[in-house]
């Protein structure tokens, strides 16, 4: 185990910090009623990455095609298009959720069509869905560490303002706007974070970190936005790093499915113990 830890410590740290940042961004996305849209945009990022993998295969047929920057750039571009498209159509619809679900189905269908025509991307596309932290290279792990540190600094600095904008849009129905620096920066940060995470950590890991901790903690009896954000960050970070470590020690535990289960188990256990303590008082 010690040998494995020495080998994978950058990945453990990357999982810890990516889990924390994704979970906080996810809490804001849910408050902004953008959870389903995020799933559709994540799927469009997956489509973009598949297109990028195909382009890489054509131009760089030798070596590790998934390690060029092209899939990432394509993922970012297509997810930006996916975001703009869903946003525009939803603003003209009385049922935005149906628009987002339709977009999700469309992007999923297009991804499968692409795989049908170009089977060479199939294994990479499958990896996109389930991901595996073990496959991260040391450089990718260090990149994620730095990236997560940047996003964490952004969230620590601006969480109050982002929370306020989320409140105004959810409760007072003030429209979010690309003209507002706060909204624009949040859109850019969340889009980049989701896209990168989908490409290198997988769709399941990304969606689990984004939504499971905040969904479970919404049943907590405790009040306060700051407290909620700290809790989702800690539980997601713990679930991501612990899940990875356990899967290293016992290979029958698949990494991302185990992390997904822990994203529910850890906060549920915390809330249950909290309720018991409150009842005993």
């Amino acid at each position, binding site marked *: 185990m010690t040998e494995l830890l020495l080998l994978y410590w950058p990945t453990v740290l990357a999982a810890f910090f990516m889990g924390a940042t994704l979970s906080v961004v996810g*809490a*804001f996305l*849910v*408050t902004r009623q953008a959870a389903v849209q995020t799933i559709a945009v994540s799927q469009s990022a997956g489509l973009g990455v598949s297109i990028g993998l195909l382009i890489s295969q054509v131009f760089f047929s030798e070596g590790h095609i998934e390690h060029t920057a092209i899939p990432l750039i394509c993922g970012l571009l297509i997810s930006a298009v996916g975001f703009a498209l869903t946003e525009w159509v939803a603003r*003209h619809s009385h049922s935005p959720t149906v628009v987002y679900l339709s977009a999700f189905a469309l992007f999923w269908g297009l991804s499968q069509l692409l795989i049908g025509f170009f089977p060479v991307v199939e294994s990479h596309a499958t990896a996109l869905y389930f991901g595996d932290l073990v496959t991260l290279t040391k450089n990718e792990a260090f990149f994620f560490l730095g990236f997560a540190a940047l996003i964490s600094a952004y969230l620590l600095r601006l969480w*109050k*303002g982002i*929370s*306020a904008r*989320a*409140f105004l849009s*959810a*409760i*007072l*129905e*003030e*429209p979010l706007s690309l003209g507002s620096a706060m909204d624009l920066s949040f859109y850019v940060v969340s889009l980049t974070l989701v896209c990168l995470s989908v490409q290198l950590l997988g769709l399941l890991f990304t969606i689990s970190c984004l939504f499971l901790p*905040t969904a479970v903690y*919404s049943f*907590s009896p*405790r*009040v*306060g*936005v*700051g*407290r*909620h954000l700290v809790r989702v960050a800690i539980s997601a970070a713990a679930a991501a790093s612990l899940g990875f470590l356990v899967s290293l020690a016992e290979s029958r535990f698949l990494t991302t499915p185990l992390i997904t289960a822990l994203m529910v188990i850890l906060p549920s256990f915390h809330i249950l113990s909290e309720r018991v303590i409150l009842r005993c008082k």
Partner: protein
Amino acid sequence: MLLVEGLDYGPPNRPPLRRGLSFSVSPGELLHIVGPNGVGKSFLLSTLLGVHSKQAGNIQLGFSRHRYLPQMQNKAAHLPYSLGDILHFEKFSLNGLEGIGLLNSAQADLAWNKASGGERQRTLLTRFFLQSGDLMVLDEPFNHLDLHSKERVQNLIRETFSERPGSAALLVSHDDDPSKWMGGVKVVTLDLAVEGAR
């Protein structure tokens, strides 16, 4: 001064709610906007403040700063906001609460999602009165309030006019004529059922 000339406004890509609306509001005046449901009172306020785009006409907003109380949608939020969170976002000190007189510091720990409609509205009004801005824009401020709180809000609006002589207000309300409680402040009524064409 707020000057509006020939304003057409309404949701984008749809026919305007009103056409050719013109009026002005000077410092020291309160404009009481009235009209039946669906005539576009709230949409007019958000258009004047630039939240929504106008379809035609001119709006000159001469006041350097404004504060805005949108109509409260009595909804729950995903994040567990406390009433105090909503005031802290604007860096307000909870010490100012007692002066406003709509919330006390013990209520700051209440959850938004569990608060009554009246407690929610008083939180938003407290936030409004702790802000600064010469132009007060209030959309249905008396909704969900009991008689005591309603009178307190009327007093706060009147006090703002007497403490800051350059103040003006736009008030959307289905309540009685505000001139009954505004003391010597000039009150002008804009009836959207009469003004502007549909």
